């Protein structure tokens, strides 16, 4: 399905995650962050977003532990930056799929 974000038509899945990363940009990220209740993104948020995108590019599964040991942030701060389900919210804002299981 498609969604209009800031005047741009973006391909997303049923839960609002981007399905085509090439459509991602910072303006879209800011808009999704607002919708997710994360608010305005500061440099800390952007550092986490870049880290997650890098992990995704390398096919590395994203976990809380990985974010905590990234040197970019610690787990407590990650929760403060993206409250209520930081992994899925940060993934959605970063334009990458949420962490999933096999089924």
């Amino acid at each position, binding site marked *: 399905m498609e969604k209009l974000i800031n005047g741009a038509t973006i391909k997303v899945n049923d839960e609002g995650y981007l399905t085509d990363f090439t459509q991602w940009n910072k303006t879209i990220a800011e808009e999704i962050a607002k919708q997710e209740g994360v608010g305005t993104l500061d440099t800390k948020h952007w550092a986490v977003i870049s880290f997650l995108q890098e992990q995704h590019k390398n096919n590395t599964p994203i976990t*809380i532990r990985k974010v905590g040991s990234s040197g970019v942030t610690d787990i407590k701060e990650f929760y403060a930056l993206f409250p209520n389900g930081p992994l899925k919210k940060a993934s959605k804002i970063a334009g990458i799929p949420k962490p999933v299981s*096999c089924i």
Partner: protein
Amino acid sequence: MATRNIVILGAGSAGTMMANHLKHKLHDHDWKITIIDEATTHYYQPGFLFLPFGIYEEHEIQKPITKFIPHGVEFISSQIQKIEPENNVVLLNNDVKIPYDILIIASGCSIAPEETEGMKGKLWYKDIFDFYSFEGAKALHDKLKSWEGGKLVVHITEMPIKCPVAPLEFVFLADDYFKHKGMRDEVEITYVTPLSGAFTKPFASKKLGHLIEEKNIKLVTDFNVEKIDNESKKLIDYGGTEVSFDLLVTVPLNKGAEFVGRSGMGDELNYVPTNKFSLQSLIKENIFAIGDATSLPASKAGSVAHFESEILTENILHYIKGEELKAHYDGHANCFVETGNHKALLIDFNYDQEPVDGSFPFPGIGPMSLMEESMLNHMGKLGFKWIYWNVLMHGRAIPFIHPQMSTAGKHIPAHEL
């Protein structure tokens, strides 16, 4: 030409299958095959799910490791200190050096309860259990026999874990178990997961989501455990959310073998960085990895190790001849999923294709149905133990089941094709 050495680290499912495959393909005077493991018992690990509920007994799911090591393959029973990739040797605990020309890391993964504060505390194997080890599953069986009910919490610490559907299967079997004991009303079952749902793939969520509600399972999602409070018997997550339990069945953090970490070859969880298609490690070209030990974005499951073993055998033969590693693993997994009440689902998927419904292995015929609860699938799951011991661990193929996933017979939505 002098005899060269293939060394396999780990004699579990993956290592044992590789020893059998390679023994059949290579000549004794060219290649000496050695397999090293500190354990002496080979466990049928899918049986750990059934042990707590008394569906399997202890003796059915364990056999001596050496029973499946083919003649002519040397088995060394020893702990491994480390690998020295620069010298092409494996160092055993007694400082004995085992040289190799080709190394296969098949050392699996295991639970690390000590990584979570309060998990391996005073309640460990009293009110907190795992069922990912023989000891845990056995202790849990004894506990369940006399447990009088209360809050049962089934919990995943963090992904990736071996057999990602097992915790859900445990919940379904527990529902069944307490119903049969006539005490389901005395038990509140809660499933706690770091993921966003019990099912996370779109098709499975739609098709199977009802199971959670029907079986009266409470669901807590996006829960990343920080610690377990043994006094108040609570799981506490990093965001401050708490879940109370009387009996906690947890899947602790899973990690690869310690010696992989000691050799400086693993990622932060000791998994070996591995090419997801060729199964060659990213460490050095003569080092390969298979099964739960790898960093592959595939499920950590026996069927994955089985399919990978066929691909890796081909690629090792290519490597020996100096050829390109042409065999590509597609992430294929094929698993029976218990749903309780003597029924099970069958799922078949790979890196790109999520599990969908259809028929298996013969398109349009079956006899197995995919993503559909059936008693036949349940019988398939129970019957698989025989196949495991008598077919797979001897390196024989299962008829009509191929390492590459087939899209024929699957009802794949048009937009995904």
